């Protein structure tokens, strides 16, 4: 501020830029309009001055010569790489005309809006899609296999999502007396050094380790955490649910659970009919009884006791039986034998004795037992998982099993445990499943959202279309045609979409495609219009995602580029005659309204934490009646309790208890394929310097991770005559891709780990190359269409493959 022409701007990092889910406080030094430095803000409670390599490389990102700086209109055939620069006004007019024509002729639902990972883009694409009239926001991964599915699954079980507790709720963090240090954290399939997933600062776990928190790691790879764990379970990918069931087996049978919590706060005492296998409801007992009311067995009166879901209570004096069977008289005069949910849950859990778990997971029984005991005895303890749980067709039942673990051990919403996470002050910009923002689709549009008729969990919680069904619909046109796509920072071809060639065909079937991005990617090359977007340094915005609530403050502009919020705002005004906001700041004020602050007021503060007693501040909110809209103690589930037996899964005709199911493309389920492709193929391990498909053009970062890597165990490499650093093909029945071998003990002999998101910005953008999009693309080996029974999850981390050395001709490019 002192030097002339130099300003220092405090802001919040949230994409585009580092690519992450954001949250770091940063200070940007801008000189004569150019970013000269970006540093961590030492005063910010989130990162305390620390900052990752990707954010520290922002000067090379913001001023990169390849950044798109003007709207482009396709000049040749789609994919020919010929572009004509046009003005923003021309671009808006063209987009408005083409999109309105499609809306008039085919209906707004025929236009798709695709997004990537959790950026400050989702609110603005929602604004755009809903004012245009389409409910179809699409996230490219098969089975929508990421964070949103996990949130839906957790809401299904416990009414809210949850995260591990690193005192992130308090400005003074670890010094706050309300916080308790977790004794143990179970790191279930993720690798913190490389990312800040899910709106958590990854290295908080390292802070906790330094303070003495012990780690249990569940991971097929020898990760940094695995090396530093009390217990490391090196499981076969895709068998996480079996480990979780094994944990439950130990904890339930050794009496290591919190019986008071199970009795009081779960639906363990509710009765199941043994004839139908379904929950007994008040409507079964008497005519006119409510179907929403469940029934327990009152051990005092030896009679059924109705659980009144509205008042969240049994009749006064009732003592519900936790375990056992009973016979109940029905309204129709018949009698039915019933058992408690807990009795049935125990039977389900008993289907997973540890020798069976060991057989499924390849982890010795003793190791599972020891780890389960360690977790259960640690108080408090937290579990946090990465995308391997989401990236399996059995994802919802796996999440159910994991949620059961922290619930029955009494670790839910307690200090140092798995703490329920809500948007600070309930101010929502980015509406994750089960929440509402100021943008909502009309009821008429919502009725047409793709696959909600097929998948209950999508209809109930999610705001997105199911991806695999959407891709099919582009080809079949059933039940209605798909004609256009808006892609916002969503590199479907380069990394997000499995079976990328199928996605290319799909894009080519569409009449009109708009891409918004900061750089050309394989995906923008297939658009009709490309709009140059802005980084987080070039916009005002709010970051509302758990805690704290923060503003993003514009530090600079890059000539020709516009932030997503501005693009969404301008087009939304054109699409919706009733558009209600005068300016972007009006809109931000509206989003912030529940906090009682305007954008300007929050900007003054920089960040704000919800006060104790607010529903978005911990702890033990279920006891205080802070979670349910009706103010009664309990959780936001249909029964108001944590549902060990899921009433929603029952309603949707799916297994209501957690289960393990063998993945569809494994050595056990497909021995025919395994004969040809004997290695397990896993993908998606994070790089600390590259975020998914991004940053390949940033010199500082690319120099640190220059090539697509496949990790191979030394024994496996030598068996195939593969030396360190040699180029190899990884191949299976779906396709193949070229990788550089990293010969390492990080992976077991029976698995390889292929890096994802690889394309080459330095190569030609025109087809057939599309910036080398298909050469080292791990998605060549992964299918679409293998999603879970409820539409959630897909086999992304556990395929089959073989590896062999590439010929010199093959590697000429690489």
């Amino acid at each position, binding site marked *: 501020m002192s030097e002339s022409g130099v300003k220092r701007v405090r802001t919040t990092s949230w994409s585009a830029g580092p690519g992450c889910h954001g949250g770091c406080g940063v200070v940007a030094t801008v000189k004569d309009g150019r970013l000269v430095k970006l540093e961590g803000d030492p005063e910010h409670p989130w990162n305390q001055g620390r900052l990752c390599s990707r954010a520290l490389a922002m000067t090379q990102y913001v001023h990169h010569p390849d950044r798109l700086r003007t709207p482009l209109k396709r000049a040749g055939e789609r994919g020919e790489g010929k572009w004509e620069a046009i003005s923003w006004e021309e671009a808006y007019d063209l987009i408005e005309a083409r999109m309105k024509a499609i809306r008039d002729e085919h209906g707004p639902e025929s236009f798709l809006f695709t997004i990537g990972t959790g950026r400050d883009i989702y609110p603005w694409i929602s604004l755009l899609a809903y004012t245009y009239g389409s409910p179809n926001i699409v996230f490219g991964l098969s089975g929508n296999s990421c964070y949103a599915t996990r949130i839906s699954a957790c809401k299904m079980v416990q009414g809210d999502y949850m995260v591990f507790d690193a005192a992130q709720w308090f400005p003074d963090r670890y010094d706050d007396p309300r916080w308790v240090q977790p004794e143990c954290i179970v790191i279930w399939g993720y690798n913190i050094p490389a990312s800040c997933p899910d709106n958590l600062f990854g290295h908080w776990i390292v802070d906790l380790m330094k303070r003495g928190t012990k780690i249990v790691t569940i991971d097929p790879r020898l990760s*940094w955490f695995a*090396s530093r764990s009390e217990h490391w379970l090196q499981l076969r990918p895709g068998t996480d649910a079996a480990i979780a069931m094994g944990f439950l087996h130990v904890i339930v049978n050794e009496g290591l659970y919190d019986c008071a919590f199970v009795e009081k706060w779960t639906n363990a005492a509710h009765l199941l009919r043994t004839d139908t296998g379904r929950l007994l409801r008040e409507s079964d007992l008497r005519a006119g009884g409510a179907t929403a009311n469940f029934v327990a067995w009152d051990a005092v009166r030896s009679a059924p006791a109705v659980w009144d879901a509205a008042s969240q209570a049994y009749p006064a004096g009732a003592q519900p039986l936790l375990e056992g069977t009973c016979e109940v008289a029905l309204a129709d005069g018949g009698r039915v034998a019933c058992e408690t949910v807990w009795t049935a849950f125990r039977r389900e859990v008993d289907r997973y004795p540890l020798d069976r778990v060991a057989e499924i997971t390849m982890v010795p029984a003793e190791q599972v037992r020891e780890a389960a005991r360690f977790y259960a005895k640690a108080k408090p303890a937290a579990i946090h998982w990465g995308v391997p749980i989401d990236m399996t067709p059995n994802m919802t039942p796996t999440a159910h099993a994991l949620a059961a673990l922290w619930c029955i051990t009494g670790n839910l919403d307690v200090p140092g445990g798995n703490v329920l996470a809500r948007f600070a002050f309930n101010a929502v910009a980015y509406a994750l499943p089960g929440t509402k923002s100021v943008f909502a689709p009309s009821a008429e549009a919502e009725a047409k959202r793709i696959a909600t008729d097929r998948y209950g969990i999508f209809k109930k919680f999610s705001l997105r279309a199911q991806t695999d069904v959407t891709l099919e619909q582009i080809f079949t046109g059933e039940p209605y045609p798909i004609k256009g796509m808006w892609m916002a920072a969503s590199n479907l071809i380069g990394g997000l979409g499995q079976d990328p060639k199928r996605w290319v065909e799909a894009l080519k079937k569409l009449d009109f495609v708009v891409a918004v991005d900061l750089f050309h990617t394989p995906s923008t090359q297939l658009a009709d219009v490309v709009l140059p977007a802005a980084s987080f340094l070039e916009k005002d915005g709010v970051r509302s995602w758990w805690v704290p609530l923060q503003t993003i403050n514009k530090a600079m502009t890059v000539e020709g580029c516009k932030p997503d919020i501005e693009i969404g705002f301008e087009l939304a005004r054109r699409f919706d005659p009733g558009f209600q906001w005068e300016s972007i700041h009006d809109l931000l004020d509206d989003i912030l309204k529940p906090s009682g602050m305007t954008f300007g007021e929050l900007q003054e503060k920089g960040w704000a934490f919800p006060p104790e007693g607010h529903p978005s501040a911990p702890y033990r909110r279920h006891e205080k009646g802070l979670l349910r809209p009706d103010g009664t103690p309990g959780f936001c589930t249909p029964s108001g309790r944590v549902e060990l037996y899921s009433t929603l899964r029952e309603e949707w005709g799916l297994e209501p208890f957690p289960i393990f199911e063998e993945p569809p493309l494994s050595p056990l389920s497909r021995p025919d394929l395994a004969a040809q492709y004997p290695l397990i193929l896993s993908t998606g391990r994070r790089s*600390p310097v590259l975020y998914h498909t991004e940053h390949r053009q940033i010199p500082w970062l690319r*120099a640190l991770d220059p090539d697509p890597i496949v990790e191979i165990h030394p024994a496996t490499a030598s068996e195939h005559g593969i030396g360190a650093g040699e180029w190899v093909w990884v191949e299976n029945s779906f396709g193949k891709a070229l990788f550089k071998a990293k010969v390492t003990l990080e992976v077991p002999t029976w698995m390889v780990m292929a890096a994802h998101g690889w394309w080459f910005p330095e190569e030609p953008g025109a087809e057939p190359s599309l910036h080398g999009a298909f050469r080292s693309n791990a998605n060549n080996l992964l299918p679409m269409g293998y999603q879970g029974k409820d539409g959630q999850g897909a086999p992304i981390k556990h395929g089959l493959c073989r590896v062999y050395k590439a010929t010199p001709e093959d590697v000429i490019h690489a």
Partner: protein
Amino acid sequence: MREKKPRNGLLIDYEFCTGCKACVVACAQEYGWPAGQGGMRVTEILQELPKGRGYLSFLPFPTESCVLCAGRTRKGLKTACEQHCLAAVIRHGPVQELAREMERKPRMVLWAPR
């Protein structure tokens, strides 16, 4: 007689270095190093332990180009790598002080670049 200035160094707690490479890019940004050069390198070390166990470590190594952020530390700032290190495992200070620190905790290394 002027007292000899104490030599400064970097104390690294390699037990908790996660290999995130923030230190590398922090240094590159601070001094405008071209890609591939700079004051810090991070090495991956995979130890093979008995009974087939492995142990993955990372070790940041200050190179010939490290100037110990003399300009920053004079102003009372942390070195660029120390401030940004995600695991907070880098400490800059007089070597003697840092050496005393080493007695308190194992798995540390002390660098005294030129």
